């Protein structure tokens, strides 16, 4: 691992040095047969990716769209508004947001020390810790969920939001820890030493130096945790025991209900927060990135 880290740092330095050249390489088309291949490739790819979204929008904002008609007869936001004002949608949206934010925060709090140790320190059993952290990504979630359910039933966490938050930490922690460990491998503790000798306490150094320095990576890690928690269906269902209805659970039951308008509107609601988060953070790292 130390060799890997070193290579990573060297690579980062090289990229910094030859930034311009690297960027040029990125501009080379994916299939360099014709100059316009890249353009056609995109022309096919983007509609393919956008198609399901388009169908959702068509369904959610229309009325009376039946088989032979190529497009809906009337355009209206009524079905979307109806689904959105449904108290069940609102409460599931609130629970989903609450759980996802709590999971993001807790993942950072728990993942930070682990990542710091893995990224900055050499210690006996480091490889074993990496392996243990990888495990949740390999073990089937159903097995984890069943086991946790039995445990949580005994200690009274089953069917509660804290229980679900804890369960969601299982799949989010590996991603958060890996992302932050990578950031720490490129990090230089001497920034903290500087803050200390200038009179800053350990906690002050954390908040005024370390966290701002790592802000881009922290944002990416939090985003991972948020998205994983947000789209979590199985663990929520198993631990929530039907008492906590998050958006994915509601969407699943709607999907089995078979009303395409409701499904489409719910799917759009489900898509909105991640889309919003990605849209805002996609620019953030560029603003926050420093010459580390």
């Amino acid at each position, binding site marked *: 691992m130390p060799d890997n880290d070193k290579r990573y740092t060297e690579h980062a330095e090289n990229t910094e040095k030859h930034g311009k050249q690297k960027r040029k390489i990125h501009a080379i088309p994916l299939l360099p047969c014709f100059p316009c291949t890249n353009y056609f490739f995109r022309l096919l790819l983007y509609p393919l990716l956008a198609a399901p979204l388009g169908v959702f929008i068509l369904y959610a904002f229309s009325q009376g769209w039946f088989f032979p008609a190529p497009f809906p007869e009337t355009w209206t936001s009524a079905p979307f508004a109806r689904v959105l004002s449904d108290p069940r949608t609102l409460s599931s949206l609130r629970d989903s947001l609450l759980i996802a934010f709590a999971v993001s925060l807790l993942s950072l709090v728990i993942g930070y020390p682990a990542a710091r140790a893995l990224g900055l320190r050499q210690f006996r059993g480091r490889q074993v810790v990496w392996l243990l952290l990888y495990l949740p990504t390999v073990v089937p979630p159903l097995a984890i969920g069943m086991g946790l359910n039995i445990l949580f039933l005994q200690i009274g966490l089953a069917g509660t939001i804290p229980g679900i938050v804890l369960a969601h930490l299982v799949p989010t922690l590996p991603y958060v820890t890996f992302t932050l460990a990578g950031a720490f491998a490129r990090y230089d503790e001497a920034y903290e030493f500087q803050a*200390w*000798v*200038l009179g800053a*306490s350990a906690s002050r150094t954390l908040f005024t*130096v370390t966290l*701002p*320095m790592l802000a881009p990576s922290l944002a990416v890690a939090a985003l991972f945790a948020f998205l994983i928690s947000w789209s979590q269906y199985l663990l929520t269902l198993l631990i929530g025991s039907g008492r906590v209805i998050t958006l994915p659970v509601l969407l699943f039951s709607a999907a089995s209900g078979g009303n395409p308008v409701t499904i489409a509107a719910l799917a759009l609601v489900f898509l909105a927060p991640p889309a919003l988060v990605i849209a805002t953070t996609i620019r953030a790292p560029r603003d926050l990135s*420093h*010459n*580390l």
Partner: protein
Amino acid sequence: MSRYIKTMTQVNLLNLTKRYPNQPAPVLKDFSLCVENGELVALLGPSGSGKSTLLKLITGIERPDAGDVQFDSVSILTLPPSQRGAVFMFQKSYLFPFLSVEENIGFGLKVKRAPRDEICREVGRMLDLIGLPGIEKRKPSQLSGGEQQRVALARALVTRPKLLLLDEPLSSLDTEVRLNLQEAIRVIQRELGITTILVTHDLGEAMAMSDRMALLLKGEIVAAGKPEALFHRPPSLAAAQFMGVSTFLNGRKAAGSLVTPWGALQITCVETSPSTTYAIRPEHIRLEKEPATNALPGKVTDCVFRGEYIEYQVAMGGLSVRARMPMPAPTFPHGEPVFVKLPREQLFEVAG
């Protein structure tokens, strides 16, 4: 600068020992050094000689296994790094990239909850001191390497530290910038009268900047003293090698002369130990065409033109002697037989 309160600090490092786990030899062995108030002491040593570890022990980033660090005869080992009043400056500036120059310099004062107008005033004064007024609002990434180091110095000094630690602060800079900054740091250090320890592997830098020098090898001080004294008469073989001496003559003493395998040489001091080593600085060696007193025969094997001097390598038996002849110097072609003159008063004895 009259308003700058001069901090009086004598620093005492007593028998410091530090060993890292999984390493057989300790990084520092029973290391003792006293730095007087306002003095600049340079620690000269190759990488891995324990220089940086020493600074970490003084600032409290690492704990020593044994020994004590005292400021004005009071142990500071129990204090956390933030309360020791020892600041450092590294090869890299480590300016906080997300803060402006002003915020960087003011960091130490802000942490101490100084009023805003005082921070502003002190930052302005520091920028004047380092010769970069008016760059308050810039980001570190907009500064050159030399400017970054100057700002790092200002950030370290604004808190009025008891001790300034410089860890190879100039080794990543271009020669010209480096020489300028050497002078600037020296002037500021004298002006503020701040006790300073400079760690470097550059002999020229150590000599140009320090009041006193200590040569460090494998965690131990090999020799210490004034730069001039150490340069001209290094006491030991290791110290002499440090100071750029490469000619060592082993021999036996007999009645005011040194009998070497290459011939007998007149020497000044006569001591009792019969077999001994004498050394001479490369710039004191002269090459002659004709035989002379204290001249041994040899053959020129290499010649490098260095501008201010020409450097010759002369093979003398199995020994290769380096001689620096200041310009203008006589030219000797490759393979020319010459006489290597070792002036009697420039030969000095070195201990094993």
